[in-house]
């Protein structure tokens, strides 16, 4: 796969896009290595879609630099277009047309002659398990099938970089697994995939590196493992039998583990982070000490678990931190 000399599929520096007074993307710095799945993780409205739409040449940046395979997004948009493809959140095929017609249409627009276009369409439909639905209008497809025809349409031009904007939002678990398998197969062929998602397990499952985005900026970047360890060695989850004992349990945990304890929405649940970043604390030892203390105080614990923080916790911790820094500033 041809890449530029830095080996990066996407590089941006200080990328900005404003809509009226809203800064949807506000100084985004990204470096996406070629040949990998890169996850853009963030809540609704974080600027993920706007960023992807700029990189796919659908929106013009208002500021900053952006290169896709070394081509400047602003001055060489046409070159970028020959290398990338986008599967947006909304149907990016024509719902009134059949699966075959959609793929023939796009093949013809890429320059395939009629017989070759027909062949290419049939090949893609077969690869995506849509042969039986080939002559049905896309609006009659199920959600999972529609997503597959969308992705099929996106890889028709054998892109070097594929943007997938929330590819599994609204899909049932089975269809979601199918999309994950497709993404793995695509990246195995050397295609770079830039994936936006609000699902942390999705980023965890697929992405080699993740950028966490909030308010149009990257607030953390790294491998899933790095992001998890950045906020602590582990997390203790507790479920008590009696909600009335929670304040006592919270006090004991805070003392033993020397950390802040969080009350969950569930009235019997508590969460505590063990070993803040840097401090090398034996999480397991601290956990068992805490259990012994709780038992000594007559507090009945129904469930106890100790594990690496989930990406959900990472995300909440990071956005919390970002919010606090802003207050200080």
């Amino acid at each position, binding site marked *: 796969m041809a890449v530029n000399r830095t080996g990066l599929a996407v590089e941006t520096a200080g990328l900005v896009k404003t809509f009226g007074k809203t800064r949807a993307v506000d100084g985004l710095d990204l470096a996406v290595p070629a040949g990998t799945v890169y996850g853009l993780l963030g809540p609704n409205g974080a600027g993920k879609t706007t960023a992807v*739409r700029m990189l*796919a*040449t*659908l*929106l*013009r940046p208002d500021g900053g630099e952006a290169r896709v395979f070394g081509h400047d997004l602003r001055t060489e948009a*046409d070159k970028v*277009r*020959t290398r*990338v*493809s*986008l599967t*947006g*959140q*909304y*149907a*990016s*095929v*024509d*719902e*009134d*047309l059949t699966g075959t*017609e959609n793929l023939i*249409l*796009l093949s*013809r*627009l*890429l*320059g*395939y*002659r009629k017989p*070759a276009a027909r062949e290419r369409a049939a*090949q*893609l439909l*077969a*690869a995506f*398990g849509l042969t*039986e*639905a080939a002559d*049905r*209008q896309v609006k*009659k*497809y*199920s959600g*999972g*099938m529609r997503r*597959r025809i969308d992705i099929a*349409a996106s*890889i028709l*031009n*054998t892109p070097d970089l594929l943007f997938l904007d929330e590819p599994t939002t609204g899909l049932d678990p089975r269809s979601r697994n*199918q999309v994950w*398998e*497709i993404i*793995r*197969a*695509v990246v*195995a*062929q050397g*295609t770079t995939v830039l994936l936006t998602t609000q699902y942390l397990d999705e980023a965890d499952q697929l992405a080699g590196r993740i950028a966490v985005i909030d308010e149009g900026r990257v607030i953390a970047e790294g491998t899933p493992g790095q992001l998890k360890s950045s906020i602590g060695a582990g997390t203790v989850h507790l479920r008590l039998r009696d909600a009335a004992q929670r304040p006592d349990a919270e006090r004991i945990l805070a003392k033993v583990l020397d950390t802040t304890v969080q009350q969950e929405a569930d009235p019997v649940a508590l969460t505590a982070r063990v070993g803040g970043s840097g401090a090398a604390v034996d999480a397991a030892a601290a956990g068992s000490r805490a259990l012994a203390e709780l038992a000594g105080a007559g507090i009945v614990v129904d469930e106890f678990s100790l594990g690496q923080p989930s990406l959900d916790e990472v995300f909440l911790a990071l956005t919390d931190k970002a919010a606090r820094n802003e207050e200080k500033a």
Partner: protein
Amino acid sequence: MSTATVAPDATAYTPSAESIAAVLAPGTKPRRPGPVSASLTFGWRAMLKIKHVPEQLFDVTMFPIIMTLMFTYLFGGALAGSPREYLQYLLPGIMVTSVVMITMYTGVGLNTDIEKGVFDRFRTLAVWRPAALVGMILGDVLRYVLAAVVIVGVGLALGFRPGGGAMGVLSGIGLLVLFSFAFSWIWTWLGLILRSEKSVMGVSMLVLFPLTFLSNVFVQPLTMPGWLQAFVDVNPITHLVAAVRSVMAGAPDAGAITWVLVASAVCTAVFGTLTMHRYNRK
């Protein structure tokens, strides 16, 4: 009925790494299509949409027939002594009115397409930029021709006898379709800048009603008050109707025809450019 057939194959599918690898195998990428080929491909898309949703042809068949019948019999006796007599004057005008009114669906259609997201796909393709819009309008041109032919057919059945014969009628339709193609670019521009399908429709009506009615379509402007005559004189529809009427009658009005040709060129240049500017930066 579709759910029963959809469910089994949706669940049975297991992605195969090999078949996806085969699809992504780096073959020789074909050469990019030229502007004409790309536009015609988009025109083919418009044809396919008509094939799948034939109801959308109602506005180019039923609507013109109703317009022709309604105005011929409503005004005919009062204005010209008999409907048949009036039809000789009205038909070219009502043909222009109907077709020009239909042009607004170009903007509505574009707005809907953009809303649905399919234009995102087209805009990331490395093809001649205006192709998607040119192709769309080419599809609409077919609709304009169909509407014009339907009206002439109805007119002939009701007793319209054009002095210009078949050639005159065809030239008249040609002029009208050319102007409508140019006029459509106003609607593509509006289709891109307005927020919803409804607002495109609203603005179109606001423009089209005065343009088509305050003209020489229904009556000679002689009896109108001076200020209205002034408007009628500068109204593009008046010039278009004068040109179409003249060639259909077999007495071409060179001035009016030139006006139509120049106006079409200017309209395409100005609104085509505005549309593409908007399309590229949206």
